[in-house]
């Protein structure tokens, strides 16, 4: 399966010292009331993408995340379980997965399909597969938003991320415009539904001429890895590939099963 990327925007908390809420209010004049950091992260990615490209109202919107909005769950849990209080109306609304996609669609002027989806593992890969199937059916563009927001208490995320205690976490947002159209694309993404064994992935790597980049979970493989844990690291690597004009082979691993993303810049 192949997708072509026509525009991309990103934010990483370890690379930019900004407060999301302030940035949205001062730079983009966004109404920040009744929203939270997860929504702010999505809006920042979307608005930065909008600065680079025209987005059709007929584009589909796919948002994905490794975990969703953990901080709002913590807040709701405190209301109900600890404080024995009723929940606040807009906290409840913000807890719903598609609230972020609503605000993003609104900012981008998208009127077509809007999906919020999560996969337990390989969430970015699986979203690309969904997008590919959707594009083959409609042949319209897709905006793909990937949001991973670190929890206010790092340990909450660390406990559900299959990582060691005190593994450094960062927040990451990547928005991209994808289609099946090669013309004018910034890069090509190739992926499939296959899971590779360790032996198979070693063989693919040994035969590849592309630069290798590994997920932190690929402990048995040698190569360049992110020093931080981000569930959707693959999406951020696309930025790097485009900036460096370098082709990359990204390898993700979970439970001894490997997946590949080929990025041709």
């Amino acid at each position, binding site marked *: *399966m192949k997708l072509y990327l026509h525009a991309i925007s990103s934010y990483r908390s370890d690379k930019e010292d900004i407060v999301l809420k302030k940035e949205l209010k001062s730079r983009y004049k966004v109404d920040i009331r009744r929203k939270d950091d997860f929504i702010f992260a999505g809006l920042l990615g979307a608005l930065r993408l909008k600065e680079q490209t025209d987005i059709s109202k007929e584009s589909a919107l796919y948002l994905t995340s*490794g*975990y*969703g909005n*953990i901080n709002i769950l*913590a807040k*709701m*849990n*405190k*209301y*109900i*379980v*600890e404080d024995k*209080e*009723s*929940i*606040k*109306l807009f906290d*409840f*609304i913000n*807890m*719903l*997965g*598609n*609230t972020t*996609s*609503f605000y993003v*669609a*609104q900012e981008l*002027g*998208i*009127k*077509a*399909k*809007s*999906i*919020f*989806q*999560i*996969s*337990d*593992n390989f969430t970015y890969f*699986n*979203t690309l*597969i*969904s997008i*590919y*199937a*959707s594009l*083959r*059916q409609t042949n319209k563009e897709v905006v793909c938003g990937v949001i991973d927001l670190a929890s206010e*208490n790092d*340990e*909450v995320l*660390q*406990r*559900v991320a*299959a990582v060691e205690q005190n593994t450094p976490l960062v927040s990451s947002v990547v928005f991209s415009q994808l289609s099946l159209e090669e013309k004018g694309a910034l890069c090509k993404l190739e992926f499939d*539904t296959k899971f590779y064994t360790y032996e198979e992935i070693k063989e693919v790597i040994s035969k590849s001429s592309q630069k290798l980049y590994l997920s932190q979970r690929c402990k048995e493989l040698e190569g360049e890895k992110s020093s931080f844990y981000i569930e959707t690291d693959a999406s951020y690597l696309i930025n790097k590939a485009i900036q460096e004009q370098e082709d990359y082979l990204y390898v993700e691993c979970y439970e001894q*099963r490997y997946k590949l993303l080929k990025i041709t810049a």
Partner: protein
Amino acid sequence: MSNILQSNYRCALGARQETLELLKVSQTKQSKRVIMGIEGEVEIPYCSFTNSQELSYEEILEEIKEVVTPLLNSLTDTQKRSCCVVVGTSVIDLKIIESIESSNYAYKRQPYSSQKRSIDSYAKDISDSFGLHGFTLTINTACTSSANALLEASNLIDEGIFEYVVVIGLEIFSNTLSSGFNAMQLLSSDHIKPFDKQREGVVLGEAIVATLLAKEPSKWSLLGGFSNCNGVNITSVSPEGEEYAEVMQEALKKADLTAEDITLLKAHATGTFSNDIAEINAIERVFNKDIVFTAIKPYLGHTIGACGLLEMAVLIDCIDAGFVPKTLNHKDPIIEDLQPLKEPMLCSEGTFMLNYFGFGGNNTSFIIQKGEL
């Protein structure tokens, strides 16, 4: 085109056969649940099939396994390896809640351990338990979650990416979710009264439903569907129902049909003030007044993330049994000459449109057809 091979479910009326028997005699079942209201605990009407106040992750997973087992046992091991799982739900992520409680509250602290978990863990655990391919997705678009899961699954089948997809709709009682609906003043104090001037809101419900999709022949097919988003208001649409009408018209286009081809419409019909007025106006826009329509939520409750798939599976069972259930609790119509079914209707074949509209501006409509096998 994807075909609907088989479905199975558990809902407030029971398992499949019990549900069908009760629908034949226009019966429903409601119980009560206690939730956190604005001034302390309150009791609300609820359509439940579980007995405990809130189930654990493991208990929910066991319930899902029971529902999917008949579907997945019909596949060979080779077929299972080309079967993926797509879930539609709006349930709270209980594994993340466990992590929150263990990390944030000293008295609930557990020794550190870490396992990859998310709202998609149910799908992943089902995939692992039954030896399926391993591709899983969980879609959360509120009331349209499992309707969108069905359409996304259909894309995967149509493009030949997977041979089989088991689509699961899941909604289990949650104090948090119910309290949220209560805070929005959307809950009825007694029953769902679709398209009725006296309507006062929803009765929530829980359900687990699974449907197996494939290209292989079946008497039921998914002809097409459409999903859009209304970016104007997060909790409501215009009373004129333009957004709802648009999604219904686009679904007809996707299925290469016209309004005249539709035998019956299964309305979303939540019994809330704004949804019902928008939907009845949308129905009038698309069908003029020439359409038979009914509502299923008065029987099963509003099962939020599960309703997309549950109401389809229940409607299919009813049609296969030769009837369409009447709309319960409808007495005083919003539009005099545009009323849902007041008596059960004999019907054993045809083309059916199903509507789902939700928070976050998500609207979905799709069309299924019963043909010759």
